[in-house]
């Protein structure tokens, strides 16, 4: 069930990135795609009726959800923060120098 959500979110994210011309909206689209991939990673580790993967005082005979994917997701969240910060600071400088946020007008590097 969460996989359908992931597919929908990735579809929406691609639609935003491809169709919206405002750069801030494109950064938001990339953020949505990141959240979709994080959701996908955590869903992989889900086991039916599982508990948190902590070994101290763990009840017997119960499955645990996978902890490795949680580490992957944490790493990806941190990478996402760094990337978004860098992208937004670049957009700020472009806005100061070009005066526009429209990707159709940021075309000085063409051909």
């Amino acid at each position, binding site marked *: 069930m969460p996989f359908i959500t992931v597919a929908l979110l990735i579809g929406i994210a691609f639609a935003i990135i*491809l169709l919206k*011309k405002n750069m801030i909206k494109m950064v938001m689209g990339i953020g949505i795609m990141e959240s979709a991939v994080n959701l996908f990673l955590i869903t992989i580790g889900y086991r039916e009726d599982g508990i948190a993967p902590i070994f101290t005082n763990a009840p017997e005979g119960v499955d645990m959800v996978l902890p490795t994917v949680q580490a992957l997701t944490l790493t990806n969240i941190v990478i996402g923060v760094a990337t978004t910060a860098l992208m937004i600071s670049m957009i700020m400088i472009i806005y100061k120098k070009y005066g526009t946020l429209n990707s159709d007008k940021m075309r000085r590097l063409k051909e």
Partner: protein
Amino acid sequence: MIGDLLTGYGFWNPLIWVVVMVIGLLFAWLVWRCGESSYDKDTEQTKPYLSGNDEPPKGDVHIRGGNMYWGFTHALKGYYDKIIPLHSGVVNDYLTWFLIGVIVIFVVVIVI
């Protein structure tokens, strides 16, 4: 030390090239030695001969980089008129090509 590079259908040995170049440079040096060595620099003797006309200023004589290969670019105008607008500079188009690439390669790998 300089051995053969085998390519499976032949071989290439750089030593042959070095020997040929040395002989070629030797000939060039022999021809250069037979030239005129007594002349006055920076006077009438070193100016290019243009049938008696004056030499135009140096900046106009040099062919600029953008004008070379005009013939090639003009001959392939149909191809260039389609390709150059594709490199538009708009970021959204870059990612559209990514999505098109994923779908095309997926269809090719599944079907064929």
